[in-house]
């Protein structure tokens, strides 16, 4: 009998990432997850099997060469790892923190079949943070093509498209309506999940590549897209204006004080830094009993910000725990910090005090129906199950749709009339020649990484278009 080589022992368990203690972090806005140190990163990287046909790359919307950068970490060739990573992903410090890896690269990891998958997101974050500490290396740029590109919106889709297009040698101008670049990364995602200094670093990197960033410039009002192309001399335009229009419930009492759209609440807290009022000028008023309506990641962000501002928070969701659309990790984090969830209940109306502030809300219990053809379970109210809750603050986090300004001011741009999204093909091409779109403005509210993937695909298609254009 031939002697078999002893198989190397595979570590089934991933290296946990250290977090701030829930009791401590529920009172501050500092980052919750603390990241790996070098020893932890090396150990986690050593778990990667370096598959011949890596499935993790298939699971990544921007096709990051994951095994390559993990191998670099393992061999302590960090600078090379950064180059491999950034060749595909211009915003790794962001993605390492907010990507739903459990549904993407890590879901495909072969180790997941026998234990926990490799913590790809944590390793990505490690490399990106290593680069920030050791100084950015600028990649080589292709020879100038003489083509001019306008990017509308400095969010994840726009930043990605801008980085790719400038590396390909095009001249890139990025128009951002707000006074700070980053889009949802600065106005939506809270500091404790994604420190704003990290976003600013990624923006600085893109500016160092040569992108001309124009802040406070609302396309559609200052320049329309046809004007950019005709008078501005831009050969192509990418629209990544996001999904910034908040949805309301359309029930009585919604205009009372103390009722916020998730957008208003998050813009006050994150973009305007209302948690530092009066150092920062924009205030936020939050009572002691906050109800967040909704069950997505945005709802979790609102709930966790509210707890940090000292409130008791109850999440009201009309379906059950199993249907919560938020990332599992976010729900766990929120519950550790003190979130109370009330499932299978929906609001009916709000009541206010004499000064116009909300003081209570009427709700109704819901029950789940059988799953529909798509497998989604709808809900119906249970007659006679009305109940009241005392509240002093309500945050409505039931979704966002695209802002209509560009669609309104761009003649010939085909839009989905029901969702307000811009119609695009698989490469982000719109109905207008030379105009591309991607991210939430084309898909409706989705994730940061899917917007980045769309920016990347559009950049590739735009490059082809520009190089073939006479």
């Amino acid at each position, binding site marked *: 009998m031939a002697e078999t080589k002893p198989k190397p022992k595979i570590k089934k368990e991933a290296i946990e990432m250290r977090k701030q203690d829930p009791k401590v972090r529920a009172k501050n806005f500092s980052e919750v997850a603390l990241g790996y140190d070098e020893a932890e990163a090396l150990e986690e990287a050593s778990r990667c099997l370096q598959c011949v046909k890596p499935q993790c790359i298939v699971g990544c919307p921007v096709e990051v060469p994951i095994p390559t950068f993990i191998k670099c970490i393992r061999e302590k060739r960090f600078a090379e790892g950064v180059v491999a990573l950034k060749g595909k992903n211009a915003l790794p410090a962001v993605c390492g923190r907010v990507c739903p890896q459990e549904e993407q690269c890590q879901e495909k990891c072969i180790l997941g079949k026998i234990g926990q998958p490799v913590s790809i997101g944590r390793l990505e974050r490690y490399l990106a943070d290593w680069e920030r500490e050791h100084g950015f290396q600028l990649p080589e740029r292709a020879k100038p093509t003489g083509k001019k590109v306008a990017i509308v919106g400095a969010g994840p889709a726009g930043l990605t498209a801008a980085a790719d297009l400038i590396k390909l040698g095009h001249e890139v101008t990025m128009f951002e309506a707000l*006074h700070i670049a980053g889009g949802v990364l600065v106005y939506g995602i809270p500091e404790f999940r994604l420190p704003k200094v990290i976003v600013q670093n990624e923006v600085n990197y893109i500016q160092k590549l040569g992108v001309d960033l124009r802040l406070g410039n609302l396309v559609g009002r200052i320049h329309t897209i046809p004007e950019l192309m005709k008078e501005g001399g831009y050969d192509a335009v990418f629209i990544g204006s996001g999904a910034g*229009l*908040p949805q309301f419930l359309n029930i009585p009492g919604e205009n009372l004080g103390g009722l916020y759209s998730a957008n208003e609440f998050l813009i006050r807290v994150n973009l*305007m830094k209302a948690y530092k009022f009066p*150092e920062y000028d924009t205030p936020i008023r939050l009572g002691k009993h906050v109800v967040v309506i909704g069950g997505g990641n945005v709802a979790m962000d609102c709930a966790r910000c509210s707890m940090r501002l000292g409130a008791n928070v109850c999440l009201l969701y009309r379906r059950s725990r199993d249907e919560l659309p938020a990332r599992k990790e976010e729900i766990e984090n929120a519950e550790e910090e003190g979130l109370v969830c009330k499932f299978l209940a929906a609001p009916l109306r709000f009541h206010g005090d004499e000064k*116009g502030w909300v003081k209570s809300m009427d709700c109704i219990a819901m029950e789940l129906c059988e799953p529909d053809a798509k497998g989604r379970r709808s809900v119906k109210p249970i007659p006679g199950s009305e109940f009241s809750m005392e509240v002093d603050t309500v945050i409505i986090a039931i979704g966002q749709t695209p802002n209509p300004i560009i669609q309104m001011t761009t003649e010939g741009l085909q839009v989905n009339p029901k969702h307000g999204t811009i119609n695009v093909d698989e490469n982000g091409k719109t109905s207008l020649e030379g105009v591309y779109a991607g991210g939430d403005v084309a898909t409706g509210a989705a994730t940061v990484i899917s917007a980045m993937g769309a920016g990347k695909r559009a950049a590739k298609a735009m490059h082809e278009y520009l190089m073939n254009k006479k």
Partner: protein
Amino acid sequence: MKTYEIVAKTELAPKEILFEIYAPDIAVKSLPGQFVIVIIGEKGERVPLTICGYDRKKGTVSFAFHEVGKTTKELGLLKVGDRIANVTGPLGKPSEIKKFGKVLCVGGSIMIAPMLLQAKAMKEAGNHVTTVIGARIKEALIMEKEAHAASDKAIVATDDGSQGHKGLDFLKELLKKEKFDHCVALGPVVMMKDVSEITKAFGIPTIVTLTPIMIDGMGMCGVCRVTVGGKMMFGCVDGPEFDGHKVDFDELILRQRLYLPEERVNSVLWEIGECKCGRNKA
């Protein structure tokens, strides 16, 4: 010249200031009825101010403000040659300017300045324009000369009767005597509410310019929501102009006051040098 540099500063009345700033991109696109968002610095708030003039050749745009809160008091300290951190605009839908016939333009307090921009545009469109300018007291009344120049007839009113008519009751008499085809009103909410109630009785279409609390000013946050004809509208993107006969003014008054305590605290902290923003007055 630097973008957002102050080109001219005029004190219209005590604490009522008119700025002309260099912002060629904004100037080219500005139209009556629109507004800009002004940010004073990194830690500053976003303050919406109605456009009250533009000069496309010079590349300037003008807005007026009343020094009432921290940011407007700070703006008031700026001098010609100083630069504002960021000005975003033009935002909101422009006014409907066309030939209506006889137009009544009512402006109150600092909003007289943007009202006159509309009055001039209405006159250029071939309308017969009557302006009414009003203020709390005689000393606070602004732009009387400009009102006379911009319109066929200008009428003055003050709350205390120290100059011109006392209050707005005279409007009823005026409307009994003269027939108007269109009315615009810009000013404090209570004034716009009163004007709308009076014109409604006479069936005169009335457009009011609302100035609810705003943050982004481009449809993202929804804090500027108002009820118009029973429907929720956003002041920033659906407005700022709405049918005065359909606006729920009482709700708007409550919503405008939501952050008064914080605004007062912040203003006082700034005055005494305790607000920690790094831009203390002291």
